[in-house]
């Protein structure tokens, strides 16, 4: 059997090593690159990232990746955005003023509420392991997403202060609860997928999610 090929987009943001190792653990053949031609030819793409939204967009723009990513999205290449990479998929972010995003999934990036449902103060960033919660109106069957065979009580590792809110509920696959407030955890619009948690830092369950992406 030939190994699944996946290309990790290097745009100067994020811990690329861990993502690479997580994919290699699942026997994928991984290319980490900032070469537009290779990105265009990729079977599958991962857009990693940590840090501020505006910085991420600036790095993409500098490399002329904004139109490139629209092009690969258009032709149907599966694209997984992780953490900041997920947030960049949306129309815009409200982090430190409004910044335009890639616009591949309709929606807005907003701040996580610092107040719990019960009125208590919540610590921000949201750092730690949270269980998944199924979304009611997802437009894709759970088994056909990244979360195939992942149970709802599986905990995944999150670290973020902002969250990616898709405009349409059909694009929301799963979330997690922080202080009783719902935070989108997995979003998907056809070949464009985003996860807020770090699968490469979420132990065995996270590795399985990466494997699922390789099989999509």
């Amino acid at each position, binding site marked *: 059997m030939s190994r699944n090929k996946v290309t990790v987009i290097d745009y100067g943001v994020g*811990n690329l*090593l*861990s993502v690479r*190792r*997580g994919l290699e*653990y699942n026997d994928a053949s991984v290319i980490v690159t900032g070469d537009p031609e290779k990105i265009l030819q990729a079977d599958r793409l991962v857009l990693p990232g*940590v*840090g*501020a939204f505006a910085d991420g967009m600036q790095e993409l723009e500098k490399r002329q990746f904004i139109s490139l990513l629209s092009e690969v999205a258009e032709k149907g290449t599966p694209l997984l955005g992780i953490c900041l990479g997920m947030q960049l998929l949306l129309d815009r972010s409200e982090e430190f003023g409004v910044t335009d995003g890639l616009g591949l999934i309709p929606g807005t990036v907003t701040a996580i509420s610092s107040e*719990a449902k*019960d009125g*208590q*103060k*919540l*610590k*921000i*960033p*949201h*750092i*730690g*392991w*949270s269980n998944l919660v199924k979304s009611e109106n997802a437009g894709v069957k759970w088994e056909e997403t990244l979360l195939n065979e992942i149970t709802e*009580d*599986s*905990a995944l*590792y999150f*670290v*973020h*202060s902002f969250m990616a809110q898709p405009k349409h509920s059909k694009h929301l696959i799963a979330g997690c609860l*922080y*202080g*009783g407030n719902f935070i989108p955890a997995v979003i998907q619009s056809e070949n464009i997928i985003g996860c807020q948690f*770090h699968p*490469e*830092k*979420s*132990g*065995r369950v*996270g*590795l399985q999610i990466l494997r699922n992406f390789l099989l999509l």
Partner: protein
Amino acid sequence: MKHKKVRLIARLDIKGPNLIKGIHLEGLRVLGDPQEYASKYYFQGADELIYIDIVASLYGRSKLPEIVSRTVEHIFVPLTVGGGIRNIDDVKELLRAGADKVAINTAAVQRPELISEVSRRFGSQCIVLSIEAKKQSDNLWEVYTDSGREKTGIDVVDWAKEGVARGAGEILLTSIDAEGTRKGFDIELIKNVTQAVNIPVIASGGMGCVEHLRAAVQKGGADAIAMADILHYDRSTISLIREEANQAEIDVRRYEP
């Protein structure tokens, strides 16, 4: 009510190429290859790992980046690395080697701007302010540096607040008095710090049994627990501690090895 699962973290103190362990951060004993222990704790279900090079701040360069890059080959949970970090370049080197966060103590005390610089450059989630605290009198703790060797005259609670103001994302709070004693955490210390700041606090030093963990979380307000001794000497395992924590109705990640 806690809103997040309590993280169970394995802490590995390193000297040169070796995992070591002491009492009150002194009297060090060599235990073996840190990578082997790290793998063991990952497979037991540790939520995170922390590496601290305890002599790096004395001698400058360390073997940390090399140990880190070998470790992350097989470990898929967050890794925090500290010891001897003096500037942005040191941080960059460790992140490139595979660390997710860096813990800074001595260099932050010497030049607090370093916290802001790292936070601005890599995000607050990336910087853990490591505080070594020694009790002076009731409700008063002093910040120490260089693995408990140097006094600073700085008040722990004040320093924690300044760390937050400068952009630290978490605090690793080590009680020098309790460290290595297995007699329980300094609950008052944890409580004073968690009440003063709104970022996660990792309690370190003194873990001997799950009752200690419960006190640190429920009385002290700790968000995460760092363990060393109890794991290194096989007196318990992360899996067993997780199970016991569950039975004590402390919210921890469900994990079956």
